[in-house]
């Protein structure tokens, strides 16, 4: 019997960092066996609050109660002992080890023989199996984590929390890199955990998900608690307006652009890698937003990376305005007027230690070095560089203390805008965006949508890969859906429904046979 109605109470938590009040008397109460969503724009203080609860930060004021009793949580170890676990947005599994070893990381079961702790493999595998069974997970405990997808790594983290006997599991953007099917598996497991009286604090930007899975929703803004409501009383619009503090009627800008003549034509291109994309053909018109949907593993990113000259193409042709081109390296693609905002900002996008200016200029100065060098010895013309960087900082309203600020110290949405500015500076005719709004807040998302709309209005081709169904449907004129490296169909207009996209994404053979 717990002494309180709530398993976790955070009471008037305040936390300041030099120059910022990150949390200002924020309170939150979580009931056992519920999913409690925490929402807010980037920088609203969600992560800081969770880090206070998990013992990564110690709050300046306020207290945390677990089961009605005041708890001192000085570090994550204390938190875990009290039954609080946190699944971080970025996972760091020990990839060369097995699923079981990851679950029991740091506390591998052992037998003591002759004073030495020998690994007890049987218990390790047995106990892992038990946890998986409890969660309804189908993973072999002996499987290497390196062979598992991101989704399963996430589920593994949750399994670890369960095996630790967690009463409260904090999930920070758990679905940001999951596809819809994988999300469905996660939700099934969340429901299972709920029935075992585990409380889940769920941080996400995805409103549809929140409305589907959560019982209560707490919304934060600028380090303050806006309020807590039962999920059943909320709608997408009411959540958004409470998050941004103003009415926001539309999630997508109005569609004004009209597609014109065909510009980019891809004919039967096939990867040099036999496990990757096969025989893909499509065309994109000027002033069109062309969406590419599909599940993770559908080889969407590989396809556009190959078009951009980052991967090998065995056969097929690429034509721009009727003229055949071949992008051997990205620099060729850039010179052919293409731009690619990659999927993983940290891995293939930003140069973290470099400044906003250097990150903005990197492509353009490489494609056209003479633009930024003085006559004579060709030394860099910093005035010209800074002027161009500043222009995009202004037009994209990039919030940065200065052009010299290292990009890694900015928020995710701001980083993404810098990278977008980098490509807009090259004045591309074909702008390819791979998951452009992943992990960024509602406000920044809308600005990126507006930019896409603007590009299309200017008669450019915009190609967007997205795993977010509403975004894909809300922004694209036509959608190509891929499945396991094959094109399973291109749909437009009234054909575009959730069900149709899901069907195409999960089967390409059935469709082909039908025809």
């Amino acid at each position, binding site marked *: 019997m717990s002494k309180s109605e709530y398993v976790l109470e955070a009471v008037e938590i305040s936390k300041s960092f030099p120059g910022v009040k990150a949390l200002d008397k924020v309170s939150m109460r979580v009931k056992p066996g519920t999913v409690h969503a925490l929402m807010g724009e980037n920088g609203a203080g969600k992560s800081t609050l969770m880090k206070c609860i998990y013992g990564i930060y110690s709050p300046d004021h306020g207290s945390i109660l677990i089961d009605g009793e005041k708890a001192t949580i000085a570090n994550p170890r204390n938190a875990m002992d009290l039954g609080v676990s946190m699944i971080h947005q970025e996972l760091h599994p020990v990839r060369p080890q097995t699923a079981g070893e990851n679950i029991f990381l740091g506390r591998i079961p052992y037998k003591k023989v002759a004073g030495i702790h020998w690994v007890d493999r049987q218990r390790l595998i047995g106990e892992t199996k038990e946890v998986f069974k409890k969660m309804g997970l189908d993973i072999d405990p002996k499987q290497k984590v390196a062979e598992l997808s991101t989704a399963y790594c996430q589920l593994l983290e949750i399994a670890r929390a369960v095996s630790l006997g967690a009463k409260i599991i904090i999930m920070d953007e758990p679905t940001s890199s999951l596809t819809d099917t994988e999300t469905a598996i996660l939700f099934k497991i969340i429901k299972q955990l709920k029935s075992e009286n585990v409380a889940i604090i769920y941080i996400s930007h995805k409103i549809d998900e929140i409305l589907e899975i959560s019982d209560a929703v707490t919304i934060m803004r600028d380090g303050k608690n806006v309020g807590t409501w039962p999920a059943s009383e909320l709608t997408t619009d009411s959540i958004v307006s409470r998050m941004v503090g103003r009415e926001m009627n539309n999630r997508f800008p109005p569609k004004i652009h009209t597609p014109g003549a065909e510009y980019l034509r891809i004919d039967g291109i096939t990867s040099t890698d036999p496990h990757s994309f096969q025989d893909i053909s499509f065309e994109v018109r000027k002033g069109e937003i062309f969406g590419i949907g599909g599940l993770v593993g559908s080889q969407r990113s590989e396809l556009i990376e190959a078009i*951009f000259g*980052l991967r090998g193409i065995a056969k097929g042709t690429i034509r721009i305005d009727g003229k055949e081109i071949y992008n051997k*390296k*990205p*620099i060729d*693609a*850039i010179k052919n007027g293409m731009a*690619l905002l*990659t999927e993983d900002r940290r*891995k*293939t*996008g*930003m*140069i*973290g*230690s*470099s400044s906003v200016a*250097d990150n903005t*200029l*990197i*492509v353009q*100065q*490489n*494609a056209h*070095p003479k633009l*930024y*060098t003085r006559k004579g010895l*060709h*030394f*860099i013309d910093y005035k010209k560089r800074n002027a161009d960087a500043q222009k995009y900082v202004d037009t994209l309203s990039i919030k940065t203390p200065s052009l010299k600020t290292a990009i890694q*110290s900015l928020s995710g949405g701001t980083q993404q805008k810098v990278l977008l500015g*980098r490509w807009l500076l090259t004045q591309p005719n074909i702008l390819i965006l791979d998951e452009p709004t992943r992990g960024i807040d509602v406000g920044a998302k809308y600005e990126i949508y507006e930019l896409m709309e603007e590009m299309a209005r200017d008669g450019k081709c915009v190609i967007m890969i997205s795993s977010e169904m509403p975004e894909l449907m809300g922004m694209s004129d036509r959608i190509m859906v891929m499945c396991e490296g094959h094109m399973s169909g291109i749909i437009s207009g009234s054909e575009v429904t959730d069900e149709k996209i899901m069907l195409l994404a999960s089967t390409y053979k059935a469709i082909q046979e039908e025809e």
Partner: protein
Amino acid sequence: MKIKNISKYVVDKILYICLVLMIIIISVISPSFLSIRVLSDVLIQSAPKILLAMGMLVVIIAGGMDMTVGRLAGLGAIISGTLAQQTTYYLKFWTNLPELPIVVPIVASILIGLAMGAVTGIIISKFKVPAFLAGLGLQMILYGGNLLLLKKAPNNSQPLAGYKDTFLKFGTGSIFGVSYLIIAAMLVMVFVYILLNMTTLGKNIYATGGNREAAKVAGINVFKVDMFVYMLSGALAAFAGCMIAARTGSATATYAEGYEMDAIASCIIGGASFAGGIGNVPGAFLGVIIFSVINYGLTFVGLSSYWQYIVKGLIIVVAVALDMRKYASRS
């Protein structure tokens, strides 16, 4: 708040403070340290190491590491030494070689450095051998090569000697009181500074080291960047060897042994990051000078020169630990 600012300042400028403190302590114990002659000696001693450190700096910024430079400097010393001998020397290495102008040994060492740098670059960039291991292997090969080369009759593993006066003058002479070696080192520093800060290639070097994959997507030819930095490092290393040969009037297979570690340490305490993408010329220069002052200063105050290793080691560990704290407090 004020104390916080001061401590931040101290952490930021720790290298300068260390250097000034060391010079003050040494000068208090032995006032003659603060003479033009001594300070000029410190700089002359540092000159070849500055070249190695500048090459290493560019490689580290590009996200690599060049472990070959010590042995490569040794090779540079031997090659240039054999080409700079007097025709009358009784153990002349290339027996029938006529008298050559002084540019020949200098240019030859630079060319051999470029070639070796290209080999290192290809092994690391094309064949994807981790930089440390590639360097380790090549280092051994170079050492073996140096030993075999010197064994050739009539030299029979003797230290090289009998250099022409013009070559020796390059190593020991000066113009307006400034040693040629110091001038060469200064010119190299200016060159590397301009390269890194004022050219597009410099920006691409920082980008490649900062995030290689992102640099590729941005259209940078990272193979070209790799080749450039290793060839530059190789050329500077071999030229540094030529400088040492000219200054000492000799050359053996153990010349410049372990200098690659000094070069790496100088760059790192000067603020360069092994992760790539970070580093600067003044920092690396200061790193070299600090090590030279320790080297020279300790013997100057009458301590055993063996102490230099302990002091150097301490400085590396403390400097990097402080640097890490600087980063930790930022995030």
